């Protein structure tokens, strides 16, 4: 199978955006809290990385992806990664689940792990930056015209399909970041510069585009090709 249901920019067929009336809770059910906490704790220990986590979500069956809630996508990725790393199996999860009451009847026993607790606190407070120093200077600069490549890897990418083949103008050099396309598959970090590219609505959407609209998209250097000589090469 190929990933794809997650790449939603411009997908037809969606109706009104529903908004919650008034304030909404961060989590509405106990299982969502557990999934969030478990994802966080397993990521913080480096059992898998953020790009793998995103790819795991994208590996859902497209129909299941579309039918699932946000926290179900997280749960699917959590299970997928832990099974992929052979930490648990689906069979173990399901047999354990079958032994549990439908409602949690007693408080779970406390199990303290102070070191992990501290690691997680410091990850939340200090962040885990994917920015990297690269030796060379950026290939593009503000004002350069670039085209996003037609790029459909079998695995993970952060180049949305709607931008492929479209031309835009670099507005900013963001810095260099771990390359998700390789990092998601443990093929190395291979950091590259990322650029903010400004695309006109009619370039992206033709007559479906609205007047006076532009889209700014941050793209890794390997996603781009020059459409005119870069200023430094002129």
């Amino acid at each position: 199978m190929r990933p794809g249901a997650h790449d939603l920019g411009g997908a037809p067929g969606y109706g009104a955006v529903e908004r919650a009336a008034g304030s909404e809770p961060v989590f509405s059910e106990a299982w969502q809290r557990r999934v969030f906490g478990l994802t966080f704790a397993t990521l913080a220990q480096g059992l898998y990385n953020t790009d793998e986590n995103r790819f795991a979500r994208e590996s859902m069956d497209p129909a299941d992806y579309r039918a699932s809630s946000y926290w179900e996508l997280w749960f699917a990725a959590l299970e997928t990664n832990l099974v992929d790393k052979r930490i648990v199996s689906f069979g173990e999860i399901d047999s354990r689940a079958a032994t549990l009451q439908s409602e949690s009847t007693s408080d779970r026993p406390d199990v303290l792990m102070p070191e992990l607790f501290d690691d997680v606190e410091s990850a939340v407070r200090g962040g885990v930056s994917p920015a990297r120093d690269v030796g060379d200077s950026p290939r593009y600069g503000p004002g350069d015209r670039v085209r996003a490549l037609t790029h459909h890897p079998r695995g993970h990418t952060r180049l949305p399909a709607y931008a492929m083949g479209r031309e835009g103008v670099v507005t900013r050099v963001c810095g260099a970041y771990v390359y998700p396309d390789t990092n998601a598959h443990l093929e190395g970090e291979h950091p590259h510069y990322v650029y903010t590219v400004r695309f006109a609505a009619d370039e992206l959407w033709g007559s479906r585009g609205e007047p006076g609209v532009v889209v700014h998209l941050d793209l890794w250097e390997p996603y781009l090709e020059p459409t005119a000589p870069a200023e430094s090469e002129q």
Partner: protein
Amino acid sequence: METLPDGAPSPTAGRYPASAVELDRRARALESLLVERGLVGTDTIDRIVEIYESDLGPLLGAQVIARAWLDPAFKQRLLTNATAACAELGIGGLQGESLVCVENTASVHNVMVCTLCSCYPWPVLGIPPAFYKSQAYRARMVVEPRRVLEEDFELVVPEGVEIRVYDVTAEERYFVLPQRPAETEGMTEAELAALVTRDSMIGVALAASPPRSNA
């Protein structure tokens, strides 16, 4: 993980979507297995949840915006390097390692979306609201922002104002500096912060108007 061969079923085929009862059982099962294996502590899980339910949220972003409205030098630092400017107020961390603040003006209205998942500046705004995570928002905001803002958010952006959609799918995390509302001269930072809504920092609303006094 490795890429999947063509024709291979998804690893989670048949497991999602699931009923709330099933998801609850499965989550407790997974938690107990990981606790038994010494991979997580219950204290860790509870603390993570507590941080994101109670400590982080749009009140932090509102402080940043109110400060920027009052202090032009801070505003300049915020627009130049939002990560450093937020750090001055003790704001930063996971999913906010590289922050960018974009300014709404009389000629530009910024709005953000993540079409590939739901990337969002957690240390500034907390966990994203349901609409931001919805597939309809992710699908439509890049292609028909005027219509979505008008029909679904009751926000009419005048024709001459450019709508700049930030599709935030890479590693920088954006938030919007909304325009300061009229008739807010003399208000304190705390009073101004109360006007800065979560939605105004996403770009689907303007900052709120000050309450009318009947004096």
